């Protein structure tokens, strides 16, 4: 029973999304897979092989000028065979107040991504966090170790197949607590 419906994206964001998509397609062709507007963010899905060049273009091109990496986040969709894992980058152009989201997907059998530390220093720990949580390896990272969990664990906690709860607790009744 949904009372509200999400607001449709406004015209300015749609125009920005289309313009950026066109620019990127002109520069990178088929590596740019699709573009859509999610709420108030233009979101462009690209293929993994050109991801570093695409981000470099977005950062260094005078017109795009996305000089700030807001955040980076790993994604796991176990049902999308062949595209189970993904990475989302959110970029920000402060002088013109534009934000954009870039997503890329890759299969579980090949969890490698190029590092974007040469572009933004803040990617260092963000990539370590995604390695810690999902097991995505970043080629070229100077210090790819676990950052939040203990270094000697061998599982990747944020994957969907990993359970949340502490396995050593034996006093909670699973049927009551829904573990």
């Amino acid at each position, binding site marked *: *029973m*949904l009372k509200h419906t999400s607001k449709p994206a406004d015209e300015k964001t749609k125009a920005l999304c289309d313009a950026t998509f066109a620019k990127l397609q002109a520069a990178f062709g088929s590596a740019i897979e699709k573009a859509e507007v999610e709420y108030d963010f233009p979101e462009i899905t690209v293929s993994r092989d050109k991801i570093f060049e695409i981000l470099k273009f977005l950062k260094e091109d005078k017109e795009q000028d996305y000089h700030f990496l807001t*955040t980076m986040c790993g994604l796991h969709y176990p049902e999308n065979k062949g595209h189970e894992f993904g990475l989302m980058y959110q970029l920000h152009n402060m002088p013109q*107040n534009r934000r954009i989201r870039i997503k890329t997907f890759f299969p579980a059998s090949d969890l490698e991504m190029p590092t974007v530390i040469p572009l933004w220093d803040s990617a260092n720990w963000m990539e370590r966090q995604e390695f810690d949580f999902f097991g995505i390896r970043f080629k070229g990272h100077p210090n790819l170790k676990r950052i939040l969990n*203990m270094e000697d664990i061998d599982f990747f906690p944020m994957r969907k197949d990993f359970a*949340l709860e502490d396995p050593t607790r034996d006093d909670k009744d699973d049927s009551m607590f829904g573990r």
Partner: protein
Amino acid sequence: MATAEEKVYSTLNLGPTHPATHGIFQNVLHMDGEIIIDAEPTIGYIHRSFEKLAERRPFNQITPITDRLNYCSSPINNMGWHMTVEKLIGAELPKRVEYLRVIIMELARIADHIICNSVIGVDTGALTGFTYIFQWREKIYDIYEEICGARLTTNVGRIGGFERQWSEKAWTMIDAFMKEFPKGLKEFESLLVRNRIFMERTIKAGPVSADMALSYGFTGPNLRAAGVDYDVRVMNPYSSYQDFDFIVPIGTQGDVYDRFMVRQEEMWQSMSIINQAIAKVDKKKGEFHGDVPEFYLPEKADVYNNMEALIYHFKIVMGETDVPKGEVYHAVEGANGELGFYLISDGGRTPYRLHFRRPCFIYYQAYPEIIKGGMLSDAILTMSSMNVIAGELDA
């Protein structure tokens, strides 16, 4: 005798439990006498896996988790989360509710900056400022307690507004606080701001240039002290911040003194915002929540008489509300910078993926770079002036 090539550096472990590091993170420092050559930080000592926990909890049960991100200013985190879910479902709130939210968020900002600035004072040895100004934090705790029942980890408000009308006592306390806090803040300022020793300790300690700050993802007072006037409240206004008139203070060198002064001035600006909000709000009557039946509990009288209200009540309490599918990112100006919530919803009762863009985590990476070449005591000051809160660092 060691030649220039064979210099041996001593290693100092600024361990996880240390009185001067306010929070638990470890730094192994390589030192040449008193100068720091290199630092290796280790974090994760309080990793409580919020992102995984959020995938298990219905939307209104995630608010207590967001409390514990930056626990010195929990209301800002709570409001940020509520606004994210409201953005997801497309709910709009009445102006009065947004102004009340602004009051609570600015009080939280003042509370956080009180801690940060008094702790900078403590790290230089000035304990008096801490004992004087912490009294005012108790007054803010009293206001929170009257509005929502808790002092520190507030879980204030609901998705859709506030749980009840703010009582007369709460308004009396807010008015009394706004009348008396300027005196207390001036007293604190008179101890530190033009204090010769404090200035000598903090000016030119731990400087950050604007380019370095932007490259390392700084936001908030740390970025503003480096000279970049980026404030989420101005750039992407939320909760009717565009209706308020305030200045965004910036510094020049990004050193400890600039960060201290930026936070000090932000406290004055927050007080101005709260006064403007109090003037705009009718204290006695008016709505205290929007029309968000998916998440906001209906009136008990309706639950007993109206079928629709009964169904909504059941769904909300059991956590089985319907939400649209989608991805939304919402950022608020936390006390440390841009606190972002990236929510992927698949239409189910819990988020599919919730990622917190935690400002402390992102800017703490720059710490080894900032303290290289400086002295150990400056390193301690830099850490406390960057306001690293362990809960937000590790999540």
